[in-house]
């Protein structure tokens, strides 16, 4: 029997493509959860109870949902930060440091300028946070362009610098009379932290306590839409993608490659800085060294799990938000330590970064030369 010779539904367009893009990430998540279950069984725990608790904690009631959403917000922004850089074949490992700088800059504005109205003070503090991240992202971009220093190395180093710098700004001073940091709360005694952000610089609640969801959720959504629009709809995004795919072709096309690299790193930093600012102004209302940038590192996993696409990043961030949101309840209900969630998140990274493992586990047909490469595999190449 001959099949009709006219080719119909093409996998390169529409729904089929979306489904295929979702396949590997979903399976990676599934595989990580299964591996987590194996770890639990080996340590004598009941995975069913644990995952039941996890689900209940994340979605069981209004508070659960609120927790999940609250935790999703920073993942969206740091995920977008890493994803945006990926589009230009740049590997931003610095979202963590950029997050810290965003927090510090935002808090510096937020605890000062008493008497400003909300609609001036809050945007100012947010912009300061973005600027902090922007600066911290631009540095590796500039160093890459003018000295050839690889952004991976520089961003990792700047993470340490940011973390120490952040710690210093809130340093409580020593018992031997060492000078305290400039942002330290004088009323906090020996505790190293800033004073509370003024009311006029706090992001208002969308749902107040006990739910505690603030308007930052809309900022995160808006950022995702903006990044999507920037990448896929604007000439600047076209330039960024061209540099990411083929730097020589970009030069040929008259694109300012160096400028594009610096700009992208700065924007990526700005997104992570906004994450820091939102966490500080919306939730913590102050900065202390422990509000560091772990969420910045998770941004890498979120970006990869989201296939470096803004919509994918939203979904992946939501998954991570739910995992974090449900962790405490899981431990409470099943006795499985919440740390297992970090193991699962790390496994997700391992699985999405190595799709071959997933293909082996689930016996998917190998990606042949007939297919175009996935978003991630092309992004990892280049310089």
């Amino acid at each position, binding site marked *: 029997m001959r099949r009709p010779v006219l080719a119909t539904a*093409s996998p*390169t367009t529409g729904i089929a493509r979306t489904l295929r893009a979702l396949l590997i990430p979903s399976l990676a998540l599934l595989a990580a959860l299964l591996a987590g279950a194996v770890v639990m069984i080996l340590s004598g725990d009941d995975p069913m109870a644990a995952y039941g608790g996890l689900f209940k904690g994340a979605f069981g009631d209004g508070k659960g949902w609120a927790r999940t959403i609250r935790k999703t917000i920073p993942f969206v922004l740091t995920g977008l930060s890493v994803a945006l850089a990926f589009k230009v074949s740049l590997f931003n490992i610095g979202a963590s440091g950029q997050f810290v700088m965003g927090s510090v800059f935002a808090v510096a504005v937020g605890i000062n300028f008493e008497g400003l109205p909300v609609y001036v003070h809050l945007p100012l503090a947010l912009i300061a946070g973005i600027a902090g991240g922007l600066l911290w992202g631009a540095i590796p971009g500039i160093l890459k362009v003018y000295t050839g220093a690889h952004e991976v190395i520089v961003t990792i180093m700047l993470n340490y610098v940011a973390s120490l710098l952040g710690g210093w700004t809130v340093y409580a001073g020593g018992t031997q009379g060492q000078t305290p940091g400039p942002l330290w709360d004088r009323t906090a005694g020996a505790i190293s932290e800033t004073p509370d952000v003024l009311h006029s610089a706090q992001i208002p609640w969308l749902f107040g306590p006990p739910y505690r969801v603030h308007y930052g959720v809309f900022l995160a959504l808006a950022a995702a839409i903006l990044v999507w629009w920037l990448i896929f709809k604007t*000439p600047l995004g076209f330039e960024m993608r*061209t540099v990411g*795919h083929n730097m020589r072709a970009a*030069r*040929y096309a*008259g694109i300012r490659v160096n400028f594009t690299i610096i700009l992208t790193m700065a924007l990526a930093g700005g997104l992570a800085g906004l994450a820091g600012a939102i966490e500080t102004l919306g939730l913590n209302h102050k900065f202390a060294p422990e509000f560091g940038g772990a969420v910045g590192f998770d941004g890498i996993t979120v970006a990869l799990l989201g296939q470096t696409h803004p919509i994918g990043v939203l979904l992946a961030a939501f998954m991570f938000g739910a995992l974090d949101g449900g962790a405490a309840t899981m431990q409470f209900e099943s006795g499985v330590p919440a740390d297992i969630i970090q193991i699962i998140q790390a496994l997700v990274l391992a699985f999405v970064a190595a799709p071959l493992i997933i293909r082996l586990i689930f016996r998917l047909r190998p990606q*042949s030369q007939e297919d175009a490469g996935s978003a991630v595999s092309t992004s990892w190449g280049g310089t």
Partner: protein
Amino acid sequence: MTEAQPAQARQPGAGAPKLEALGITKLFPGVVANKDIDLTLHEGEILALLGENGAGKSTLMNIIYGLYQPTEGQIRVDGSPVVMHSPRDAIDLGIGMVHQHFQLVPVMSVVDNIMLGSETVDRGLLDRQGVSARIQELSQRYNMAVDPNSIIEDLPVGVQQRVEILKALYRNAEILILDEPTSVLTPQEIEGLFEVMELLRSQGKSIIFITHKLKEVLRIADRIAVLRRGEMVGEADPAAASQENLAALMVGRKVTLEVEKEPASAGDVLLQLRDIDAYTDLGEPALRSVSLDVRAGEIVGVAGVQGNGQTELVEVVTGLRPAAGGSVLINSVDMTNASPRRITEEGAICHVPEDRHMYGMVDAYSVADNLVLSSYYKKPFSSGLTMNQQAIAQHAEELVARFDVRTPSVRASGASLSGGNQQKMVVAREFGRPIRLLVAAQPTRGIDVGSIEFIHSQIVAKRDEGIAVLLVSYELDEIMALSDRIAVMFHGRISAILPRGQATREKIGLLMAGVSVEDETNAL
């Protein structure tokens, strides 16, 4: 050595069927690349596969080599049906393929490259010595001189190709597929390749050979098969065929192989190069004091063996490589070391790059996006903050129709196009823009005869509109057919500039080889 071979070895169908493809159909999204194709390759013959760009030649070969799975049909080797899941299976069956883009690791040695994937181990260690000896033995037997210890990237393209062939022979290939092997070679290298192919044939190997150059087909093939739009349209006997009737069989109409043009009426100097010096990426001198003028309404052809500075010359003119000395004037404006964007804009220049994959296109982009690669920021493609997808698509539809780029849709990715259609896409983009100066390097690389005719006529039409054309080509035929003046490059210098009327093939050939033809050279 070849003369010793008795003539009857060239009789078509002399040997038993070595490889048969039966009823092969291959569908890609929106395209029928192969449609019910039957093809037989006999033992000890060279079969030439001809066809237009996008006819399905590479697809069929990739199926035979196990890279693609056929939608329908069967492959037989030595009469028994085989199923191949990957090239590894094909190699085990004695099938070897040399792709147009070599699959060698540039930083590794010849031995390592040949071993790669079928490493021989001696007491836990790689047996380099043994492999090296085998390579030497093979290269002697097939008359392909290669030093097993040299590093790939140091070797000329022709020798790299030899390594690819040796690699297949090392894996005991009985069937050899060569996809457009000659498009990257100099005429001397091509002759060398043909001698190797004849030797291989005399030893009973079977070869499928793809090319767009009909002269080569008549020179080497025992049998000719022609594909058109995915279907096998017939066979030809090289003894009875001519270039004209092969072209007609391929394209389905009569093709004029000569370029028709009036004498040029050259105007003002548009491009003026004065004493240009430039270096290669490795810091070696590439251009030494090059001076050249191109006038409006004339075609200046740059002839020369590949690697004598032509690539760098084009890059300096288009702003992609800095000039270390001298000046570039476009329309009397100093553009020395200006940015590529400024040169494109103010110089009203367009550039068909020598290597389409390196510069000319983004594989992952759609055909439509590739077609605005050098004008994406302009109206109507971008207005204000956003790009206008509709205008981009419409522009693409027009160019695809005008330049006959065969693609299922303008949304298909650039990578999915056949080699020649990718080239046509690049040419369409550059020719489709309003310009004053056209810089074309190897504009017809990998393009079929029918489309060459069209592109050549377009270049002449540009000239007649008063556009200045700088043409770089390694094909002497192309230079002779199009140029009004011919500049010959040798070792980074322009050794002579001759009006077309004074240029004979012999004279240019001598100049290209570095022999100076003093008395007749008019320097500038």
